């Protein structure tokens, strides 16, 4: 640590200030990705390959994370399989004692590489699903042949015995495929499915009119998920992210800012949440310059929205503030122009009515075309 304090000291100081150690870390290994999904939540400006952390840097960060109290490591991107050292990183993460989860589209994985990941001790795989047939999936992912390849990868995962979660991102164009996605999870012998109605961050913001579900679709999705949960109890776990813009209360974003998780971007910047770089008033520390525990407990970005002191009305005096922490800071920035404002999704926000009207207008714009994700130069 820069001032000579040990991680044990930092933990003790953190406890005294009421700051818990983080449970989970999202390691965005790269921004490179063969797909170009219009709902990509990565920033509009991506980190280039030359700026990516080296293998050695990542391995050091995994050990620092374990020492900081991280239990679950999510290897994500971009497409993490685009990193040539993926197997080595998985092995190192397991050696550091982390529960290691790979979040992938499947593109870039071969049968042999899957066997190597299995051998390296990979704990869990989350496979993304852009649609339930090649026509839909390849159109949404902007990658011809992607669906066929993904179905092969699902077979290899099943054969390996590595537990699988199917990640289905649903929106106005593919919500009618949700029942089939749940069936596919069963066919793949997945233990879980995450049904996420698209959230609008990063690149996705410009596709709100092409992807916003209608209110009726959002309600239908909630009904399908509730029925499947009851029918499939003990066979398939369903986790569900509802349609944000059509809700009356905001999401409990990150389970509270700087309280349970952190992200490391491809270039080593440490973020309190995936989209935090959209808040211009924040500045971020880098694992190349500063220890992870020091950043977690003392970094200015992590302390910016911890606790309740930063809140304005109506959040400050609201009884729900301990439940949802006023919603998503990045969404408050994007929609209210102030990262400390109430998330406009909230029924108590002065902007709520306007947002609902805009959501309805977005969802009725059937002429809108998909704007595919641009790649780093």
């Amino acid at each position, binding site marked *: 640590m820069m001032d000579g304090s040990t991680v044990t000291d930092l*933990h003790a100081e953190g406890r005294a200030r009421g700051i818990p*150690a983080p*449970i989970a870390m999202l390691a965005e290994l790269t921004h490179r990705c063969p797909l170009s999904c219009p709902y990509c939540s990565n920033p509009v400006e991506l980190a280039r390959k030359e700026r990516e952390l080296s293998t050695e840097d990542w391995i050091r960060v995994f050990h620092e994370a374990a*020492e*900081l*109290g991280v*239990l*679950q490591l999510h290897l994500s991107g971009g497409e993490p399989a685009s990193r040539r050292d993926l197997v080595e990183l998985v092995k190192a993460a397991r050696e550091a*004692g982390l*529960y290691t*989860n790979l979040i992938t589209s499947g593109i870039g994985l071969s049968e042999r590489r899957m066997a190597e990941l299995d051998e390296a001790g990979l*704990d*869990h795989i989350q496979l993304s699903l852009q649609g339930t047939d090649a026509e839909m999936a390849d159109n949404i992912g902007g990658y011809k042949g992607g669906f066929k390849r993904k179905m092969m990868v699902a077979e290899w995962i099943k054969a390996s*015995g*590595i*537990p699988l*979660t199917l990640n289905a991102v649903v929106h106005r164009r593919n919500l009618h495929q949700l029942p089939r996605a749940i069936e596919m999870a069963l066919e793949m012998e997945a*233990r*879980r499915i995450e049904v996420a109605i698209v959230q609008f961050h990063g690149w996705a913001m410009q596709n709100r009119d092409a992807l916003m579900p209608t209110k009726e679709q959002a309600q239908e999705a909630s009904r399908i998920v509730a029925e499947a949960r009851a029918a499939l*109890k*003990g*066979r*398939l*776990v369903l*986790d569900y992210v509802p349609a944000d813009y059509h809700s009356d209360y905001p999401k409990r974003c990150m389970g509270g800012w700087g309280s349970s998780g952190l992200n490391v971007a491809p270039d080593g910047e440490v973020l309190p949440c995936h989209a935090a770089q959209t808040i211009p008033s924040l500045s971020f520390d880098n694992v190349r310059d500063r220890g992870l525990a020091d950043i977690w407990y003392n970094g200015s970005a992590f302390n910016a929205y911890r606790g309740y002191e930063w809140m304005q009305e109506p959040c400050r005096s609201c009884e729900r503030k301990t439940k949802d922490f006023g919603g998503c800071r990045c969404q408050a920035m994007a929609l209210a122009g102030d990262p400390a404002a109430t998330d406009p999704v909230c029924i108590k926000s002065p902007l709520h009515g306007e947002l609902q009207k805009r959501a309805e207008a977005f969802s009725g714009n059937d002429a809108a075309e998909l704007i595919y994700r641009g790649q780093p130069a």
Partner: protein
Amino acid sequence: MSPEDIPVIPRGVRLHEDRVRGSWVLLAPERAIRLDPIGHAILSEIDGSRSFGAITAGLAAKYNAPEEQIAKDAGEFIEGLMNRRILEVA
């Protein structure tokens, strides 16, 4: 749970000593379940070959507690985790 059932901790689920927080946790896909000493004791007995009956008899002897009560508590605990696809029965 019947006494012949053999509970199994499947691939992708493991017991982990969380030294930072001074407790045991069960790590599973997207879940980290903090264990009290009873939960830890039950899961520590699951080795993929011992039956539920053998496990509860062992716990009853070890903790000098009525086996019927142990079987009820451990059965509910294991079934709860099975409903969440965290434990399985061979």
